[in-house]
């Protein structure tokens, strides 16, 4: 089985968010870039499956400009065999999926994250599957390979399910797919330098959405405090003032 892990390059989750030029663009000065946390867990699970046997190759792919290469190198250091960078600004989910559709054909299992932590688009995985005419499973919390076949765990309302779905498949992963992300070891970092990182030109595709302007949320009003010995007052406030009880 060949696995493709989609990698989104996002600002570190602790980044202070700022905007430039009339709030039209994200200010990337001084930002630390990381592998999107869900993609990092997807890659970790792919590595575990490879170590258990039954996976021939793991490729990571990103749609992005040259600045994403350190992130791809990190994915190689974690253990991916090779990387593909499609050389274009990822303008929207449709555009990104259209690019990935070009390189995803050669794989049996494609792993995407449920959302990228920057624009929270929650779109690329499903769009890619539809463009390729193959099935997808979302809310995936586990992937196993048994006798060459996929066993997928997914979350549903109030519970979970085990599924059997044939390849090729896009699995859109979330909580549970792996416990802790793998940190690259020194040896991995050395080896990553020699692994192939192929740069591919983009295909024509038009974005369908446009980001117009950003805004920071209004500061929250101060918390109204109730005395510990008069806790009943809290219920009155929730009932009469907030009207949520």
């Amino acid at each position, binding site marked *: 089985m060949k696995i493709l892990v989609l990698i989104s390059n996002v600002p570190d*989750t602790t980044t202070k*968010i700022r*905007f430039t030029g009339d709030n039209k663009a994200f200010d990337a000065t001084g930002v630390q870039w990381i592998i999107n946390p869900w993609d990092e867990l997807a890659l970790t699970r792919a590595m575990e499956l490879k170590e258990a046997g039954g996976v021939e190759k793991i490729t990571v792919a990103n749609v992005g400009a040259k600045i994403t290469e350190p992130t791809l190198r990190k994915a190689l250091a974690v253990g991916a065999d090779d990387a593909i960078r499609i050389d274009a600004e990822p303008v929207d*989910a*449709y555009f990104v*999926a259209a690019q990935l559709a070009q390189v995803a054909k050669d794989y049996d299992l494609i792993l995407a994250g449920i*959302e990228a*932590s*920057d*624009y*929270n688009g*929650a*779109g690329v*995985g*499903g*769009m890619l*599957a*539809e*463009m390729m005419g*193959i*099935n*997808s*499973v*979302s*809310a995936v919390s586990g992937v196993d390979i048994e006798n060459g076949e996929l066993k997928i765990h997914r*979350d*549903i*309302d*109030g*519970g*979970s*399910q*085990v*599924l*059997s779905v044939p390849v090729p498949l896009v699995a*859109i992963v979330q*909580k549970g797919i792996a416990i802790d992300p793998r940190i690259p070891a020194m040896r991995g970092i050395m080896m990553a330098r020699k692994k192939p990182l192929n740069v591919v030109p983009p295909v024509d595709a038009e*974005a*369908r*959405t446009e*980001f*117009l302007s*950003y805004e*920071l*949320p209004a500061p*929250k009003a101060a*918390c*109204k*405090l*109730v005395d*510990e010995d008069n*806790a*009943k007052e*809290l*219920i009155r406030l*929730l*009932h009469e003032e*907030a009207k*949520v*009880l």
Partner: protein
Amino acid sequence: MSVLVYTENWSGKFKKLSYEIVSFATAIAKEMGSSVTALSIGHVADDELKSLGKYGANKVLNVQDDRFESLDNKALADAVAKAAESESSKVIIFAHNNEGKAIAPRVSVKLDAGLVSGVTGLPVSVDPFVVRKKVFTGKAFVNIQIKTDVKVITFAQNSYEVVENPTDAAIEVFDPQIGDDEFNTIIKDTHKITGKVLLTDAEVVVSGGRGMKGPENWGGLEELGELLGAGMACSRPVSDEGWRSHEEHVGQTGKIIAPNLYMAFGISGAIQHLGGVNSSKFIVAINKDPEAPIFEVSDYGIVGDAFKVIPQLIEAVKEMKTNN
């Protein structure tokens, strides 16, 4: 022309969020001068289907086909796209939850539509079609224009008041005619916790953290939760320790919820925890430590010992109930 709503039910009853999106769709339809069609897939009785009319649905398409129980993403997307085509829908609305996130992107590709997920309120304008959503996991908002003729959005729960708009909804059986070969998701096993309030759909959520000290101390929270018809949640260390089931873990790596009221007992309010709850309409914190970050995002709070506070709250809720 219509606005199409993908509704969801939980054992034959519409989820609260389905009424919320129908209300939301009704407001958009009014601005665009179009009607509202709701799509229901599953076994929902006629009078329950009719109830969508109360919130403004003009028509309900009723799909009763057991094959969809496998939630096959490809087949479901095909069914929704066919409904949208037969209704000439210009806007298709899903909830921003597991099901909506699974299907909406596929539907957008089928209908050559632009997609915005996690929309947090009525469109800023309908022509051009501009919507608002949170980005950077809630640290900012953005206005996005959808430039295609047909638009697909997923709607962030609790971003719009449920408004009554009584309409006599016409109920029509709809057969999207999906071939057996389109379905290839086979369910091997289902593990469902039933009989409890569904956490992701609950209006009130009672949540406990490490400050609760141990699983034996959850009795009071459960009693309070039961009295309030609340869903139960917990912080990550609580489920990691096995004090509570993983089903209850909320936060960046757990479930993302947006109830009307989130009550946090003995939870410090780490950024990763807040990522899963900060869209709640009201947040209440009970914590011993006045410096706990949870108070920065809370609307109401008690600086104090949860074990002293919980019995008082239980008593107050009981009194409130007898007085109403």
